């Protein structure tokens, strides 16, 4: 068993969020995006993998990762001057331990993460995301949208770390979780670490039921409650799925989710 997803600064032991333990069999993989170029990579992940990524100066990487089974994933990325790393991750079930460490080492380097999850019976997700801001005026924008059903368990630890010298850096993090069953367990730990005065950081989280006002408004137009849940939860994931920008990927994800064609 090895310790994974270690919270950068430990907190109260009793919460069970400081780390997670797991047997792993990592393969390694390297992705390198050369200076000034642009790449889009789509991966459906089913085995343990440690991925090292470098995004060269002025380059752009859009990485889409979809998780459906049981795997441990470590994704370590360094982002150079004026480079952009856009990450989309979808967790559609299973038992996943996933770590995302992004080092924003370059001036004006940028990182956006869009994470979506829809977890049901027996599903477990432990997610540890760290955005290390070293570069001046580096930016990070992390959003997570999720749905927990049945007895799903999820831990999302998201850290924005402003290192000394990262002046002008900005980081934001937002997680919205819809809970749909009394047996779910949600853990949310949004951390900001800061050793630089000239930065702006924010995080927010909302966790709970669907807004009662939304339900009332939609019901007043004749839509029954179950369908409202379906529409709202689907809309959450769909927003992220559409951002993959690739029709085939979208179709494949829809079929994993068992969604029909919208047109008929």
């Amino acid at each position, binding site marked *: 068993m090895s310790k994974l997803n270690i919270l950068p*600064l*430990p*907190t*109260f*032991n009793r*919460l069970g*969020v*400081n780390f997670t333990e797991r047997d792993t069999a990592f393969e390694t993989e390297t992705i390198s995006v050369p200076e000034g170029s642009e790449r889009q990579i789509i991966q459906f992940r089913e085995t343990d993998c440690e991925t090292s990524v470098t995004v060269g100066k002025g380059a752009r990487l859009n990485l889409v990762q979809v998780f459906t089974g049981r795997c441990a994933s470590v994704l370590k990325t360094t982002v150079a001057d004026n480079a952009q790393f856009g990450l989309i991750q979808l967790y559609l079930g299973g038992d996943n331990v996933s770590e995302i460490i992004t080092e924003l080492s370059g001036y004006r380097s940028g990182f956006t993460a869009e994470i979506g999850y829809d977890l049901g019976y027996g599903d477990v997700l432990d997610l540890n995301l760290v955005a290390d801001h070293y570069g001046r005026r580096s930016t990070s924008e992390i959003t997570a949208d999720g749905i*927990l059903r049945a007895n799903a368990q999820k831990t999302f630890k998201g850290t924005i770390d*402003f290192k*000394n010298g990262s*002046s002008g850096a900005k980081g934001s993090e937002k997680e919205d979780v819809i*809970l*749909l*069953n*009394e047996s*779910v*367990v*949600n*853990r*949310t*730990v*949004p*951390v*900001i*670490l*800061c*050793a*630089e*005065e*000239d*930065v*702006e*950081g*924010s*995080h*927010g*989280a*909302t*966790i*709970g*039921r669907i807004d009662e006002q939304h339900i009332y408004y939609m019901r007043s137009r004749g839509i029954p409650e179950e369908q409202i849940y379906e529409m709202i939860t689907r809309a959450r994931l769909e927003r992220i799925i559409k951002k993959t920008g690739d029709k085939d990927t979208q179709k494949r994800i829809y079929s994993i989710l068992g969604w029909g064609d919208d047109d008929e």
Partner: protein
Amino acid sequence: MKEKTLVADIDRAFYDFRYDEDEKNFLESGITPEIIREISAEKGDPEWMTEFRLHSLDVYNRLKMPQWGPDISGLDMDRIVAYIRPQKRMQSDWNSVPDDIKETFEKLGIPQAERESLAGVGAQYDSELVYHNVRREVAESGVVYTDLESAMHDERYAELIRSHFMKLVPPTDHKFAALHGAVWSGGSFVYVPAGVHLEIPLQSYFRLNAKGAGQFEHTLIIVEENAYLHFIEGCSAPKYYEASLHAGCVELYVGKNATLRYSTIENWSKNMYNLNTKRAAVEEGGKVEWVSGSFGSHVSYLYPMSILNGRGARAEFTGITFAGEGQNLDTGAKIVHNAPETSSYMNTRSISKSGGISTFRSSVVISENAVGSKSAVSCESLMLDSVSRSDTIPSMVIKTDKADVGHEARIGRISDEAVFYLMSRGLDENSAKALIVSGFAENVSKELPLEYAAEMNNLINIEMKGSIG
């Protein structure tokens, strides 16, 4: 101008005066069962308390130091003198308090404060409560405000204390709770009977004067059904070069539909290790309100905890932490929702300056049975320079779907536009920044009685003075 000049011309040196201790009154350093027995005998503890202390010591020796949070390796436990025998027994007449002790309190403005606005004052000088008084009318309403040790020997309260003492914070909770259980000394006991609404606050003022000494006071407050109490705790200690420890314990029992507001402005000297444990249990429809300002100490671990045990119970926590040079203040709050339709609200600010480290740490737990509960947490941090640190580590654990939990946090600096605006109206830069920081602390100052809010603003001004920009 009021006689209580403390507010107007407070400065650090003011808190730094001290008197020589008579060394012969020290017990030997380090803690053994023999010392515990000695303390216990000295105090004339009932037998159950002696047993409790020995059991706690055993727990203390078995537990590890905390594995998270700020470094406390500078704390040499063997050198902390657990107990300083007082030279005189507790006095209820101010005139019979020894002169040097009296002078200390006079300087702190305690008797004046009592006369002016406070319903009762308990001042702890080192380990024993030397002065205690409750206004007559307060006592007549059935409110008990006395030191815990006397109360333990009073047959009217003995059973009440035995059934509540360290039941909320058991010695097994953590190493310093165990230490507290073994060596606790002094502190307050407050009992507010059902239906009594105390309009004026009760106040307790703690000071730690002896070099290298620990302070382990215990505060036990029971507020019965439909009653109301505001309790104010102020702390300060003069400065010594040897590390000092404060491991107090506060246990609050809030009855059905009762409200307890517990306000603290803590300004321990900057070599103090403040490892204090505060906890409240709230029954159906009751409410606990914490107002907390942390300015002093070298290292703090402070997370007042509210356990919402009854349907509809509520907790509010409003806090500010100011970490300056040489300080590592790890503060926050914990809330446990243990019953349906409970709610909690947390609003905190932290400021880091001149190399100070402030950490906001919280946990909100919504248990399986806390259906229909709500929690909102909001924390803001201000960085005044780039040699300081400010960390925010909130956590939320939710085990039911019928809950609404919201969290927001923000970190940043003083806005240049705001400074420019104030300067354009004639303020110099330092004053402008001090004003902005005071405004930032407004969440807490607006919750405090006027004289405390003024004292807090003065503390902020002292911290801000001359060293920015």
